[in-house]
């Protein structure tokens, strides 16, 4: 028999009754799906933005970066013969507002006439300037009537130095006229972590600042615009073959910002998993709603069976209804998720260095639809399958009872298949499969654990006997009676709480890592680009400042690992967490004696008077990540020359001290002869800090000063933004949890209303009823808080120590506060849901029910 057409007809008739009782069902699905769809759409919008504007973000089809040295004439000739070239030089420098004597660190960027090859720099007329005459970048940077070159700057610099367009600004030994604020820099997305606002000057003017000296930390960028129709990859291959020893970092427009892309991927993955948790929590709500709907349909189902409807028709009739409703909820979620990027784009425009390509992305929406549908089925199949077991014989008695027990095996398998499919999609659609797999296993374990907890609480309540206190006795009876809300409350609260504790503890740990133990240990300033001939004078100036202490000064060069044991760097197999060592230029130094507080874990330091072929002391994790040991050879490209040395020893480095740390330290000799600058850190506080800043920048205009506090603030700001995103997502999960919790409590209201009425008839006061409810919800809340807290604690520990590789700080306060908050929430929600019961007149309730 064709049962589906009949099931469809019956389902349609039942749905005419409206959506009563399904509001929480709809909200749960909509919320979870919206979270996943929004995160997916936003990530897609960012990635699309990266790809669409890849050329302007990078500044060209291909970008070559050299550190410390410009391209040789031979290299430049080769490049200009094949492409349009734009040269950009970038360095850190101190900008000095001449009028008010304020100064700050800037990222100085010198551009040529060809800049930008792609995109357009947008200048804002400053306050007071005629806005109808926007300057072109070339005009803004050109020398004016007074003979001074022009400059444009990030609006933040104008604010920080209290500058107006037209004011004078000194960099090194050269004065500039600030012509305008730089509203949009087309290639700003390609910069990594910046320590100061951007200041744009012309390439020619840079030469006049006195900052361009041998060994200064200058980055030379060559952006190339290839002739139309060129094969970018082939060009890069050809170029690498022509200059194998150039030591340049090559990026092309398709991977212009690998760091950002990875960041977006990672955060995206994390947020999708948080969204999935919201969906799982919502799933509990789905199961509760379906169960209570079907419980209400027990008589109808029994009638249908009496009239000859096979179980299949019953199952299909209600499956169709649940599917229709689920699709409704999912559609709401998808709509919200699809428009979320539009709303968020404006918010994120300032945070993200790349344009967001707002649009309609079917991929992530489809994925969210799939997640939503599978979740709805995974949680609804069980109650649906049980509904077909309704015994029609109940119609001859007072009431047909909802069936208990397990559904048929086919439905159990189908439910399992849905959960497996959810897990498979979560793992297979992500790049970080280990992480996703860990999440899936963790979520599954949490679900099982919480389900067991619910069973445990129910059993314990049943076995507790008859406590003397009436309120406790009533509470226990409420917890273990058939059809109690216990499993729903434990599951929804437990999942939500686990995630909340996880997020709170991870964030607490990150805060502790960054802020907690820093202040005493961290230097006040990093001084960069101290010339070799300035070293003695620099030491003098610093030691003359009262309160300045702990001067630590080392020579510094930049180098890029090009080979290990003769194997080219791009052919090495490297551990994931150590890839950064190869990714760009690393600071290198040389030293006769090991730095203070150094722990040599393998090999020996060289003699103080060593003067042989280069020896290298390498940071132990980096060495192991590259598969290197003492005695291996390492080739580093320094200033365009490959320098090969032998690893003499391996060192432990505590990066969190924020002192001067290097992955590679060379023996003196070869490197001390190369042109280089010096790097210094100095400790100072309060007045000494300001005096030190002033004296050093006065005496050495070429020396750049990084305020560690400001840099840390910058890092903290970034982390805060990430934390914000994570917290919002976790908030959605908590919201889902509250919805489910509220639903579970409301579902039990009818029974409670009746119970309370009977109790009152039997002489219980309102306070008695209230006490019993408080005890009940407190028991559930406390037990769930303990297990949820434990699950969250384990998850956070795994993320901090295993995924992030950081040190674990136990935060009992955070844990306790979150757990107690959850308990309080349960009690409050429980009471809010049942408050009405207390004021009801028993006679009315008993008449109605």
């Amino acid at each position: 028999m064709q049962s589906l057409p009949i099931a469809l007809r019956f389902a349609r008739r039942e749905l005419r009754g409206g959506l009563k009782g399904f509001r929480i069902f709809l909200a749960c699905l909509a919320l979870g799906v919206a979270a996943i769809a929004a995160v997916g759409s936003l990530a897609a919008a960012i990635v699309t933005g990266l790809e669409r504007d890849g050329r302007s973000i990078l500044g060209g089809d291909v970008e070559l970066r050299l550190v410390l040295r410009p391209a040789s004439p031979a290299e430049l000739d080769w490049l200009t013969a094949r492409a349009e070239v734009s040269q950009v030089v970038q360095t850190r420098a101190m900008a000095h507002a001449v009028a008010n004597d304020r100064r700050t660190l800037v990222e100085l960027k010198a551009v040529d006439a060809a800049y930008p090859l792609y995109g357009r720099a947008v200048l804002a007329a400053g306050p007071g300037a005629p806005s109808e005459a926007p300057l072109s970048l070339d005009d803004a940077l050109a020398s004016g009537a007074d003979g001074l070159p022009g400059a444009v700057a990030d609006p933040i610099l104008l604010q920080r130095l209290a500058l107006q367009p037209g004011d004078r600004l000194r960099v090194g030994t050269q004065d500039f006229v600030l012509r305008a604020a730089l509203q949009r820099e087309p290639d700003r997305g390609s910069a990594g972590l910046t320590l100061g606002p951007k200041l744009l000057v012309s390439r020619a003017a840079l030469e006049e600042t006195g900052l361009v000296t041998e060994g200064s930390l200058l980055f030379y960028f060559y952006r190339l615009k290839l002739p139309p129709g060129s094969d970018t990859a082939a060009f890069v291959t050809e170029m690498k073959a022509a200059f194998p020893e150039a030591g340049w970092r090559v990026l092309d427009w398709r991977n212009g910002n690998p760091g950002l892309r990875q960041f977006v991927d990672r955060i995206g993955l994390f947020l999708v998993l948080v969204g999935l948790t919201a969906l799982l929590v919502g799933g509990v709500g789905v199961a509760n709603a379906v169960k209570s709907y079907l419980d209400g349909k027990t008589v109808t189902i029994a009638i249908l069976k009496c009239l000859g409807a096979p179980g299949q028709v019953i199952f299909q009739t209600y499956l169709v209804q649940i599917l229709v409703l689920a699709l409704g909820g999912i559609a709401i979620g998808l709509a919200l998720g699809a428009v979320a990027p539009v709303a968020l784009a404006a918010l994120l425009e300032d945070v993200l260095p790349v344009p967001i390509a707002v649009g309609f992305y079917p991929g992530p929406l489809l994925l969210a639809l799939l997640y939503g549908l599978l979740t709805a089925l995974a949680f609804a199949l069980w109650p649906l399958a049980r509904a077909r077991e309704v015994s029609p014989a109940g119609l001859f008695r007072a009431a047909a009872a909802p069936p208990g027990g397990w559904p048929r095996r086919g439905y159990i398998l189908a439910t399992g298949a849905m959960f497996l499919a959810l897990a498979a999609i979560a793992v297979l659609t992500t790049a970080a499969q280990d992480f996703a797999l860990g999440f899936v296993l963790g979520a599954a374990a949490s679900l099982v654990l919480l389900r067991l907890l619910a069973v445990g609480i129910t059993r314990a309540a049943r076995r507790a006997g008859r406590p003397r206190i009436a309120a406790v006795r009533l509470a226990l009876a409420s917890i273990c009676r058939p059809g109690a809300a216990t499993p729903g409350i434990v599951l929804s609260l437990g999942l939500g709480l686990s995630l909340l504790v996880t997020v709170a503890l991870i964030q607490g740990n990150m805060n502790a890592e960054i802020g907690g133990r820093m202040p005493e240990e961290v230097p006040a300033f990093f001084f960069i680009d101290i010339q070799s001939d300035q070293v003695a004078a620099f030491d003098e100036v610093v030691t003359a400042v009262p309160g300045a202490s702990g001067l630590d000064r080392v020579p510094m060069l930049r180098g890029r690992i090009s080979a290990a044991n003769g194997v080219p760097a791009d052919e090495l197999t490297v551990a994931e967490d150590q890839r950064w060592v190869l990714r760009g230029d690393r600071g290198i130094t040389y030293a006769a004696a090991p730095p203070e507080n150094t722990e040599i874990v393998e090999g020996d330091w060289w003699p103080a008077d060593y003067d042989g072929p280069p020896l290298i002391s390498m940071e132990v994790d980096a060495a192991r990540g590259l598969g290197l040991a003492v005695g291996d050879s390492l080739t580093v490209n320094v200033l365009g020359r490959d320098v090969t040395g032998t690893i003499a020893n391996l060192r432990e480095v505590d990066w969190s001290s924020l002192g001067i740390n290097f992955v590679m330290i060379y023996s003196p000799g070869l490197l001390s002869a190369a042109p280089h600058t010096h790097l210094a850190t100095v400790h100072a506080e309060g007045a000494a800090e300001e005096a030190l800043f002033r004296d050093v920048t006065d005496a050495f205009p070429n020396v750049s000063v990084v305020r560690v506090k400001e840099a840390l603030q910058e890092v903290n700001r970034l982390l805060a933004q990430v934390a914000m995103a994570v917290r919002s997502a976790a908030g959605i999960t908590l919201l889902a949890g509250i919805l489910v919790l509220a639903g579970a409590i409301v579902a039990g209201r009818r029974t409670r209303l009746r119970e309370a009425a009977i109790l009152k008839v039997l002489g219980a006061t309102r306070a008695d009823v209230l006490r019993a409810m408080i005890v009940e919800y407190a028991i559930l809340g406390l037990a769930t808080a303990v297990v949820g807290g434990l699950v969250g604690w384990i998850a956070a520990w795994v993320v901090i120590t295993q995924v992030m590789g950081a040190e674990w700080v136990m935060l009992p306060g955070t844990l306790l506060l979150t757990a107690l908050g959850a308990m309080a929430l349960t009690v409050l929600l429980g009471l809010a849901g049942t408050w009405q019961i207390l004021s009801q007149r028993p006679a009315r309730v008993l008449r109605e029910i």
Partner: protein
Amino acid sequence: MNLTNPPTARPSLPDGASAPAPATATAMVDLHDVHLTLVGTAGPVNILRGLSLAIAPGQSVGVVGPSGSGKSTLLAVMAGLERAQSGTVTVAGNNLSALGEDALALFRRRHLGIVFQSFHLIPTMTAVENVAVPLELAGRRDAFDLAESALDSVGLAHRRTHYPTQLSGGEQQRVALARAAAGEPDLLLADEPTGNLDAGTGGAIVDLMFALQARHGTTLVLITHDEALARACDRLVRISDGRIVADEPARAAAAAAARRPTGTAGD
């Protein structure tokens, strides 16, 4: 409910001496030595203890007995809604113990109509849709035409698009009756069909039921507390404690007594 002064109970056969009609191949219902113990939340209930009963096609049987005597369970066993633990249950030629759940559903659809004490209409469906359900389940293309004429035959054609909550108790039971009879079942089972109705309304329902039964030659099993109503049937079966304690012809002797109250009740 009190339709009438119950006539003095006629002397019944002594315990154990009730002679069930011999099981024949032509019987519509044939129960033989049926045992059934139901285990509810409060322990075992509603026990049938070696019950045997045969009903010929077209016969109407009134079943009476005190609460908890097993009347409703007997009906559930005949409908294939409860399974006997031992003994054989044959209805309309089907050995119910041998049928699976879906086969039982099919059996009910083909051979049975059931009327309940509390009507049991589906609240989300209109009157005509309620009547059409079993016909739809049977795959009848003319389900709604048949349902409308069935509603017409119980005098409710004008109420067909009303939902159960918009109908009075008597109207609901008439719809239920139309639903039970629309498929022209071989066997009509009625469980206290007048139990929730006042005397006048109940009488009208009973008249309708007997009229339908007579028209189609349907076999009728009617469970009731009301001795007079039971006596309106061809045969009266008395159950106590899960066993038949009396089984006697009824209508011939009591027809007048049974018909009188239904006709005059409410006056």
